[in-house]
């Protein structure tokens, strides 16, 4: 901890869930525990690190966990692809700032692919 940058905040933990088939993109895992350090490390490499840790950062980090040929089933030009609903603590992310929403410790994020079948 001696080398910790003074600007660096404590790391936070986020629970990410996948529903509606999206779990198949993530090795059939229904949920992942994500630490903010992992996201920040990815952002540093991309040289896109900003002060805040936003939903969009999480989405782009998650896309790196997907096989390259399936990535367009999750993201489309660095944004979430159409047809995926996101819940932040069981509430539609549209009510919570969407991609600009700043991640908080212990937040629960759920990605749901909409279903069209019947």
């Amino acid at each position, binding site marked *: 901890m001696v080398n910790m940058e003074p600007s660096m905040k404590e790391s936070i933990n986020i629970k990410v869930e996948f*529903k*509606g*088939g999206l779990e*198949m*993109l993530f090795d059939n895992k*229904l949920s992942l525990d994500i630490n903010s350090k992992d996201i920040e490390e990815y952002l540093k490499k991309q040289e896109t690190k900003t002060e805040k840790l936003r939903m969009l950062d999480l989405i782009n980090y998650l896309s790196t966990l997907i096989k390259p*040929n*399936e990535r*367009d*089933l999750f993201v*489309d030009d660095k944004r979430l*692809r*159409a*047809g*995926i*609903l996101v*819940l932040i603590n*069981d*509430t*539609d992310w*549209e*009510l919570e700032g969407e991609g600009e929403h700043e991640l908080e410790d212990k937040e629960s994020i*759920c990605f*749901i*692919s*909409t*279903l*069209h*079948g*019947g």
Partner: protein
Amino acid sequence: QILQANGLTNAEIKRFSRQLLIPEIAVEGQVALKNASVLIVGAGGLGSPSSLYLSAMGIGRIGLIDHDVVDISNIHRQVIHTESRVGVSKVESARNVNSLCKIDIYDTLLDSANAMEIVSGYDVVVDASDNPATRYLINDACVLLNKPLVSGSAVRLDGQLTTYNYNGGPCYRCMFPKPPPSNAVMNCSETGVLGIGMSSMIHNTIPFGNFNVFSKESNKKTIILVPGIIGCLEALEVVKIVTGSKANEPPNMLLFSYKSYPHFRNVKIRSRRKDCVVCGDSPTISELIDYPQFCGSGYNDKPTQWKIL
């Protein structure tokens, strides 16, 4: 049939006595159900239980549209011609389900040319379809005609249920302004995993009481229980809309997941978007468009190409 002053016939009072005795339904609710008409788009896994339960609840008129139903003429005959059929138990069976409910059968494909006329004839619409093009089509028709839309879906082991275009809530486009890429719609990765001759189209029969539905798609993978549950819950949404109790709920979506515990999760969703192209304050869509083109896949759930998901 003797019609009582309360608006119900003796047969209806006898038939619905159980729920007439419940204050939340009562005569008022039963009369509202009787006077209501519901269009169900799709007679597959969702449409079968929702139509069966809506008729059992006492909805006065149900429209059922599905071009893909091999036995639709069968349903038609069973419903309309019950009294003249041979075999007492069959007559009984059909009568019990439907005699107090008028059923309109549309053995056709819902599309931009006929949707406005068909949808305009009903109070509430149930989306029990199986592809994005039809879902956007139904949504736009419901917004343009100001009809509440109960939308259910079921794929694999997941189900979703929302009421759109109702009481300040969103429409389907408010939630999903852009259609999904067509490669994300089809889910064929496991086709053939069994190592038995399943590479060609497989004919699946969905059995449900009098409704025998045939489907040509091998890609509509699900366990029949998931659309069964969602279909019942679609009927419940309709009853709540017709009797008025739905008005107390905020906009929400019910998620069902076989793999998760607990299975049900209710989530709060956005309100109507002021910038929605169809239900917003300055809509740019004022008539139905070409939905297969908009979605990149047709009304038959056939994608332009199949990819892995």
